[in-house]
């Protein structure tokens, strides 16, 4: 129980719960089924991003290029499927996106690991590069409706559960793509907790030198981490397309800040080596619930960016403050001996 109180995840959960209650109090509509489903659907893609960001940050790095990778895969896969007039199952789309994403991620990993470059600046560079290729070379445009490959739209329409809002007869449903998130979470969890590869990721994030001495192939692990991040991002891109029935090449831009902040909020240390998937999921849930509930809270939509910014500042500030206090606690402490009775006259311990 004591451990539960000390854990960062508990605090995030409490804040999340309080937020939900607050929104319910202000609007009376938070806990309605259709609202909860909307939130869940809004959460799917960010949660996948939170997953890959968690893994990258835990390894001691950072990646701001993942929204670009997702957009890139989304667009390229769609175009390829269009060109070959594909009529088959959606699985191919996912596989292609995963492969392309993995390759793009591998570029990140290779640059960072082989040349010991700072991950933030490398991924800023690849972000520019990928966007430039996508928008400049490929001249990506928005694709929607009937132009989308049929497998995407049909998969997007598949649902696990559906409900109707009696007030306006709008149907809201939980799409099958949720299962992809669930699958990704399970796979990532197993890798991180039960494979040597996963543990090595944390080891590298803790102390690269110690990891080298332990015999861990640090370079390979780093490349694999960014590869994995790209893979998940690619798949997330397809999922997004399925959910929104839209292929928009720049819609995802800018989400990286929220995701990184969410993951850090959830307890993944920005320096690496610590953190949990649970925390990351709670963090992204908190941020998503907040951005999506602004309307219910009575805050005009224009304020959304600002509110997200404040949440990021507040969340990371709090994390940092907590880390400072924890650091102070670890400072050396002397066990002070009790005061001695005044020594006898002329006495001197000898």
């Amino acid at each position, binding site marked *: 129980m004591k451990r539960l109180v000390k854990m960062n995840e508990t605090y995030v959960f409490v804040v999340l719960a309080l937020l939900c209650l607050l929104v319910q109090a202000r609007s009376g509509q938070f806990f309605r089924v259709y609202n909860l489903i909307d939130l869940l659907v809004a959460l799917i893609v960010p949660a996948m991003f939170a997953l890959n960001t968690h893994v990258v940050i835990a390894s001691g790095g950072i990646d701001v290029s993942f929204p670009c990778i997702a957009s890139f895969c989304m667009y390229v896969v769609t175009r390829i499927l269009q060109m070959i007039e594909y009529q088959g199952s959606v699985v191919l789309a996912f596989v292609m996106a995963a492969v392309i994403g993995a390759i793009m991620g591998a570029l990140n990993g290779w640059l960072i690991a082989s*040349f010991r470059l700072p991950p*933030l600046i490398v991924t800023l*560079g690849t972000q520019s590069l*990928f*966007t430039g290729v996508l*928008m*400049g070379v490929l001249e990506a445009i928005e694709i929607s409706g009937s132009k989308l490959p049929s497998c995407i739209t049909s998969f997007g329409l598949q649902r696990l559960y559906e409900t109707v809002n009696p007030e306006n007869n709008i149907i809201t449903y939980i799409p099958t793509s949720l299962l992809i998130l669930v699958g990704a979470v399970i796979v990532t969890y197993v890798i991180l907790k039960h494979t040597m590869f996963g543990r090595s990721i944390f080891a590298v994030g803790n102390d690269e030198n110690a990891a080298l001495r332990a015999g861990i192939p640090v370079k390979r692990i780093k490349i694999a981490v960014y590869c994995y991040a790209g893979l998940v991002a690619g798949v997330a891109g397809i999922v997004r397309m399925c959910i929104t029935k839209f292929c928009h090449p720049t819609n995802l831009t800018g989400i990286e800040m929220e995701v990184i902040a969410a993951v850090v909020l959830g307890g993944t240390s920005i320096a690496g080596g610590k953190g949990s998937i649970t925390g990351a999921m709670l963090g992204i849930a908190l941020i998503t619930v907040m951005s999506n509930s602004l309307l219910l809270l009575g805050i005009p939509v224009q304020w959304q960016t600002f*509110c997200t910014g404040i949440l990021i*500042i507040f969340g990371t500030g709090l994390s940092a403050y907590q880390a400072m206090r924890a650091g102070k606690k670890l400072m050396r402490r002397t066990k002070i001996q009790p005061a001695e009775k005044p020594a006898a006259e002329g006495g001197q311990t000898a």
Partner: protein
Amino acid sequence: MKLKRIKSFVLDDKNFLGLLGMMLVLLIVISIIRPAKFYTSNNLVSMLSQFPQYGIMSLGVMIAMIAGGIDLSVVGLANLATISAALILQAMIPESASSLQAAGAIILAIAAALLIGLVGGMMNGLLVSMLNVPAILATLGTFQAYTGICLVLTGGNIISRLPSQFGDAMGVKVLGVIPLPIVIFAVCVLAMWILLSKSAFGKKVYMIGTNRRAATYSGLNVKGVITAAYMVSGVLAAIGGLVMMGRMNSAKADYGSSYTMQCILIVVLGGVDPAGGSGKLKGVVTAILILQVISSGLNMFSQINNFYKQLVWGVVLLSVMVIKYLAATGRPSRQIR
């Protein structure tokens, strides 16, 4: 004696030499490919009026990086400062305003913009120095916040049809030839030179960026200096924004979105170490000019749109870093950084 100093100024700094070499190569390449279009006075003047806006902003990113951090919020802060200035201009200069009234409003608007830059920078500085928030996270967060305020102030719309007086003022040509923005840029560079290379404050910034802990143990006011560094960055962001507004005669919440990336490219290219504690102004200024040459060079090809440019920036940034790594000898450097 003077020759010796010039020689040492150029030759002692390997990074600077590399940059000069790069500039030379670029100019040669352009001379071969499209000399006619490039070496026209029109083009040169056009170049001169483009780079000041992001050039000044990159000076801000430079000092933040030397202090051991990074400033990803420059563009957001610039937009916030300019949108505020724009609103003031619109409010205070009706159609029939006299020149005196206009001048007063312009001064007020500029003052407001600078103040916002100062305060915004202070926010960054406090987060980084007092709460120990990693600079990446702090400035990404403030970037969102500042952009968010811009969106609220403008409703997402562009503020155009600014009173012409401001645009006219910015369009002034000093000594009849030099566009005002260049003069502003030159003044900023001079001010930064004095601040970084000649003042005690600048030396402190370098020391703190090298080793924060030792700086505390040596009696340096770490929190104060870091906050001040970000405040300088904020003011520079505001100045860059004003120059931008003068040129575009409008203000919008998402202007300059590619500048963040460009500024980082400029400072890294210019020899500033992302880990902090080093970087020379001559390198950064040369990098600004190199970027402008590349940008204008690309502009000469009509097939190349803005997105292609992004591609180029990305490739250049990555290549520069890889080359720097390969060029390093690996031995601890005897030269001071």
